[in-house]
C-alpha cells in the first residue's frame, strides 16, 4: 500500500504532468477530475496521500478534504492552490494538511514534497 497517490484536479494538463512526474519515481497514481469521483475512489481504495486542488467544479476543495479525512484519517493531504492567502493550516477546522503546492508548480516541487513525506515516515 506504500506509494499510492490520488491526484484531484479538474485541469487535465495538470493531472497529466503531475501523474508522469510521480509515476516515473515509482508512485502508483490515480486521478480524479472532480470531488464526487475523488470520494468514490477513496471509498474503494486506501492511498498514502491525496493531492487536492481547492477549486473543483462540483464542490469546494475544503469539503472534499474534510470528507476524505473523515473516511481515511491516516491519508496525507497536499493542497494545491493559486493563492497565498489559502496557505492556512488547518485548512478547515480540525483538518491539518501535510503541505501545500502553489500553482504554477514544476515537477521538482511535486517530487520534493512527496520524497520529504516518504523520508519522514
Amino acid at each position: 500500500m506504500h506509494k499510492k497517490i490520488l491526484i484531484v484536479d479538474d485541469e487535465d494538463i495538470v493531472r497529466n504532468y503531475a501523474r508522469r512526474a510521480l509515476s516515473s519515481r515509482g508512485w502508483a497514481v490515480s486521478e480524479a477530475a472532480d470531488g464526487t469521483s475523488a470520494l468514490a475512489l477513496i471509498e474503494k481504495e486506501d492511498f498514502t496521500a491525496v493531492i487536492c486542488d481547492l477549486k473543483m467544479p462540483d464542490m469546494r476543495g475544503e469539503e472534499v478534504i474534510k470528507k476524505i479525512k473523515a473516511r481515511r484519517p491516516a491519508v496525507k493531504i497536499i493542497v494545491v492552490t493559486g493563492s497565498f492567502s489559502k496557505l492556512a493550516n488547518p485548512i478547515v477546522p480540525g483538518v491539518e494538511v501535510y503541505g501545500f503546492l502553489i500553482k504554477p508548480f514544476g515537477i521538482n516541487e511535486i517530487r520534493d514534497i512527496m520524497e520529504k513525506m516518504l523520508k519522514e515516515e
Partner: protein
Amino acid sequence: MQSPSVPGNGLMRKFILYNGFIELAWIVFMTKKARILVVDDEEQISEIICAALSSDGYVLSRAFSGEQGVNAVRKEKFDLVIMDIQMPGMDGISALGEIKKIDPETEAIIITAYGSMSTAIQSMRKGAFDYLHKPFNIAELRTVVERALEKKKFNDITKAIFSTIRSEELLSIIIDSVTRILKADESLLVLINKTGKPYIAVSYGLDGQAREKSRLEVCTRILHRLPVDDINAITLVDEPFNDAKFTDIALIGEIKFAMILPLMEGNRLTGLININRKRPNAYFTENDTQRAKVFGSLVNLALRNANLYRQLQETQSQLIQAEKMSVLGQMSGGLAHEINNPISGILGLTQLLLEKEERSTQSYKDLKDIEKAVFRCKKIITSLLSFARQDESLMSPINVNEPLEETLTLCAHQMELQRITIVRKSAEGLPMINADFQQLMQVFLNLLTNARDAMPDGGTITISTRPAQVGDKEGVEITIADTGVGIPTNMLTRVFDPFFTTKPVGRGTGLGLSVCLGIINKHSGTITAQSEPGKGSAFTLIIPT
C-alpha cells in the same frame, strides 16, 4: 511655435510658447506705449492737450464729438480717454457710459466747466477715474493722466497675474511685471525647495551661470537674515559691494541698487523677489517701495491660488490613481487564478520533456527557454496576487525603523555584491505608526530593488527617517534616495501606473511601485517621486500615526 512679430527680447519670446490670447494681450501691454484718446469739440483745447501729452511719449488720437469718441473706442483699444462733458450731440456723460460698455477697462478723465460739481460726481459714478475743472494747467493734466495710467497698469498686471493658475506661466508673468513696474535691469524670483534650499525659479536679465550663482548667493544671505529682521519688510540695499554682508560675492560690483520683496504664504516665508538696478543714481524711491508693496501682496495672493490649484490637481490625480489600482486589484486576483492552470501545465510538461532531452540538443535549449519564460509569467502572477492581497492587512503600532531594518538585512548581501553602499539617517523621536509590518517590508523591498536596478555600476542608497506632520496629525517621513540613472521628467508622473516600467524586458513587471502606492494609500499615506536624470531618484513616503 516661433514669434514673428515680437521684438528681440528673450523674455517676451518665452510667452509665445504658451497658448491663449491672454498672454498675447499681455505682450502687447508690456511693450506698447500708453494710448490716449482726446474727445473735445473745441479744437484748440484738444490740440494743447495732445501736444503736451505726445511730448511725454504717449500715443494720441482725437475725436471731436461724443459719437466720434464712442466709434473710436469701438475700433481701437485705448488705455485712457480724456473727454469734455459739454459737447453738441451726444454729451460727455452719455459717451462715457457707452465707452465703458464697450471697454470697461479703459480709464477716463472728464473735463468739466468750473463750478459744475454735480456733473463731475455724475461722471465719477459712470466710472470716470477723475475729473479736471476748466481752466486747468498742463501740470495738473499730467499728474491726473499719470495716475490714471498707473491705475490702468496695475489693473492690467492684476488681470495678467490672475489670468493663470499654471505656476510656470505665473512665475514668468510675475517676473516680467516686476521688471517693468520697477524698471529693473535684473530681476529674479527665488523659491525655497523641499529641503530648504533656495533656487532661482525664474529670472530676467541674468546672463550666464556665474551671474546666476552670484545673485542667488545674495538672495540666500538675505533669506537667512529676513526672519531675524522684519520678515514682511521690503529690504533696500544701496551699493551692496560696499556692504560687508555682500562685498565678498563675485560680480556684486554690477549691482548699484537692490530691492528685496519677501514672498509669504500666511506667516511662512516661501521665497523672495530680487530687483536690481545697475545704473548709477537709479536708487529706489519711496514711490517704488509703495508699488513694490502693492505688487508683493498681489503676487502672494496669486502664488497662493496657483498652489491651491496644484494641490487640487494632485488630489485629483491621486483619486484617479486609487481608482485604477482598485480596478486592477479586483481584476488581477481572478485573472491570476485563470492563468495559473495553463501556466502550470506548460511548466510541468516542459520539465518532463527536458528530462528526456540530451543537454546538447537544440530542443533542450528551446525547452529551457520555454521554462524561463514560464518562470517570468510566474513572477508576474505572484506580483498580481500580492496586489490583490492588499485587502488583507494586519495593522498594529510599529516603529517604522523595524520593518526597514528587517528589509535591509534581507537584501544586504545583494547590495554588497553590486557595490552599493547603504547610508542610514534616522532622526530621534519617531512616532509609532499604525501599519502592516509585512506590507511595509514589501514597500521597502520594492523601493530598494528599484534603487539597486538604477545603479548597475554601484552607488549609494540613502535612507532617512524623520518625524513629519500630516495635516494636523503626526507621522513619519521615509526617503529612499539613490545615485542612479534617474527617471526622465516626462515619465515621472507615470511611474506609479500599473505595468509601467523602464526596466529591460523581463526584468520588471511594472507593478512594484503600483503595489507600493496601493499599500501606502491603505495606510492613508502618500508616496512621491523626485528625480534628476543622471543624478538619481528619491522616493518619499509619509505615513500618519
